[in-house]
């Protein structure tokens, strides 16, 4: 936005929003009337290629998701009917299972694309200012350094709001489908074959609570991921931007860091899942345990095994969220530290 900012109009816009009661809970640096936020959000519009990519993202994602789900539903129904097996319960489990698998693939692809877009938009934020020699000028203003950085980041996230919302929508769809699948398995398979005594035990021994905790943790993990990933990618881009000398270096550094994060987190998740599964198997079947520590432990009951499994998965997911938030905080600290030195 090279035409400059009309301060009177900015104030007018600010008072209009205040009167309307908007942005009351939003911090000052994340509001559209913040000068840095405003400057950055107008600057983002200029890049035509990125704007086209952002605009095409949502329709393409929705079109692919709707067509894929429809085709998968039809195909799984065809598989069921061609086998001459019309059992409603098995058919529903098959359809929901296939749809969850397809939605999972789509949300991974869409999330990856959204992450790349976030890094691409966030990477030139500081390095661009340094390259254009306007960083010193920005530091001479009354706006503090943390506010400058956070306003820039929130402008990027605001610019990508439609993309992020569409990814969240796909996540909501997959989450509700997972809950439906779980409800189907519980109602039509677990409860279906239980006797009255088993049912009473299930509800009054508190085992139901363990399943509720498990589902709640899966739902919160699945729904929180787009937002956490977006902030994480934004901070990765900003870190690369603070440490690079040019915009090109920052973009390549940010994308490289994101790739490294993907690969390392995938390896870490697989390793941890394997290790936890190994320990869990040793603990639940001490007679066949490969580790000596577990051989003398009394064998756990079925209820204990179910509780342990549910709490392990829930704890793992919660730990993943905490680790991601911790990484974001570390990156924020790094950006602040480096950006403070840029002016010296």
């Amino acid at each position, binding site marked *: 936005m090279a035409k400059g900012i009309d301060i009177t109009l900015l104030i007018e816009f600010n008072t209009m929003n205040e009167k309307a009661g908007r942005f009351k809970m939003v911090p000052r640096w994340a509001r559209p009337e913040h000068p840095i936020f405003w400057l950055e959000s107008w600057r983002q519009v200029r890049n035509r290629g990125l704007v086209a990519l952002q605009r095409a993202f949502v329709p393409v994602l929705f079109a692919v998701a709707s067509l894929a*789900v429809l085709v998968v*539903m039809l195909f799984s129904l065809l598989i069921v009917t061609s086998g001459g097996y019309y059992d409603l319960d098995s058919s529903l489990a098959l359809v929901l299972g296939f749809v969850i698998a397809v939605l999972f693939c789509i949300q991974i692809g869409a999330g990856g694309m959204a992450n790349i877009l976030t890094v691409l938009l966030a990477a030139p934020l500081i390095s661009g200012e340094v390259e254009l020699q306007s960083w010193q000028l920005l530091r001479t203003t009354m706006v503090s350094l943390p506010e400058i950085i956070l306003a820039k980041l929130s402008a990027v996230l605001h610019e990508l709001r439609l993309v992020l919302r569409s990814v969240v929508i796909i996540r909501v769809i997959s989450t509700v*489908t997972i809950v439906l699948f779980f409800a189907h398995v519980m109602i039509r398979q677990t409860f279906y074959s239980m006797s009255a005594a088993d049912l009473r035990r299930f509800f009054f021994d508190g085992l139901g609570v363990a399943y509720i905790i498990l589902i709640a943790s899966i739902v919160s993990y699945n729904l929180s991921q787009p937002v956490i990933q977006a902030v994480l990618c934004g901070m990765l881009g900003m870190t690369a931007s603070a440490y690079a000398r040019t915009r090109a270096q920052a973009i390549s550094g940010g994308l490289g860091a994101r790739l490294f994060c993907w690969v390392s987190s995938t390896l870490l998740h697989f390793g941890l899942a394997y290790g936890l599964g190994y320990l869990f198997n040793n603990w639940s079947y001490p007679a066949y345990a490969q580790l000596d520590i577990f051989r003398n432990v009394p064998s756990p009951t079925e209820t204990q095994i179910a509780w342990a499994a549910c709490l392990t998965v829930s704890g793992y997911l919660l730990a993943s969220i905490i680790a991601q938030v911790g990484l974001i905080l570390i990156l924020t600290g790094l950006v602040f530290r480096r950006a403070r030195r840029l002016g010296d």
Partner: protein
Amino acid sequence: MRPGSLRRRRRLVRLGCLPMTCALTVCLLLMVDLVVISKAPPWVINPRDYLLGQRIVSTLSVLAGLNLVSTWLLGLISAAMAAPAAAGQGGLLHRRLTILRRRTDMMAWAVFMLRLAFLIGFVVAVILASTYLTDAQSAREINNTIVALRQYVVWVVFVLSVGLAHFLLGPFLRLRYSMALGTLAATWARLRDGRIWRAIMARTAANLLGVVVLLWGGSLGAIIFATIRRPFSRSALIDFHRVFFPALTVSWDVGRMLLFSIGVALALCLYMIGQLVLPPFYLRLARRRLAHGSQGAKQSGRRWNPKQIEGTSSQSASKGLAADIS
């Protein structure tokens, strides 16, 4: 009109829509029926019947695929074409949409023709399958089923009429709905060139919503239905088709199919009511949004408002409809 101008090209596309659809359909059917399915495998006892059956199935599959794709494209194109109508203060919205509807009507007729072709093919296939391609025992079973279904003729007529109405009127209802949705979505666009994207986004979102409602509604319905039918593995099975249609004792599949068809027909009724009722509501909303947008722009002096929609002043309305929507 200059040769090669945008208006001429548009008119060519509009006029060529129907012949192109016919030509494409015929070419595809010829290719599949004569080139792909040309010979029966050596293990087949009656190659003539086998080829006939295969060709009927492939023809119906090709027509169904074309129907799906063309219906999907019709929704997207009509929503995108209606997006530029969201300009001015909303007073001329109805007239703008009438002009745009005239431009897109041909596409709806092309989809209608494809559906008609599918319907004719389906009827021919059913007649052939029930008379020529079945053995004596199957023919007797079909005959018995038809006789049993006569007792529930009201339900059969209801299912058939709703299915036919939805199948044949579907393209026109979809066109009307998509145009209204595209217009409403375009009022959220900040800039002029963003309107079409907003319209396409809204249309694809509506498609996704439809698929999700189908998935969730169907799954929930199936879980509830199965749980009422038999809550536990040891409890007695309730056969709903025997409760509702006791005279259909010929084959259990017929009763179940009739019950399922009635459920689908009721869902289709709801869907059609939505397609009929929602467009006027969307247009009223779009008109109100356009009017409010232009008022807001006047109040703020049209100098600085990042959310404003371009071309909302009274000046753009006086520029003329043709210039605006082209």
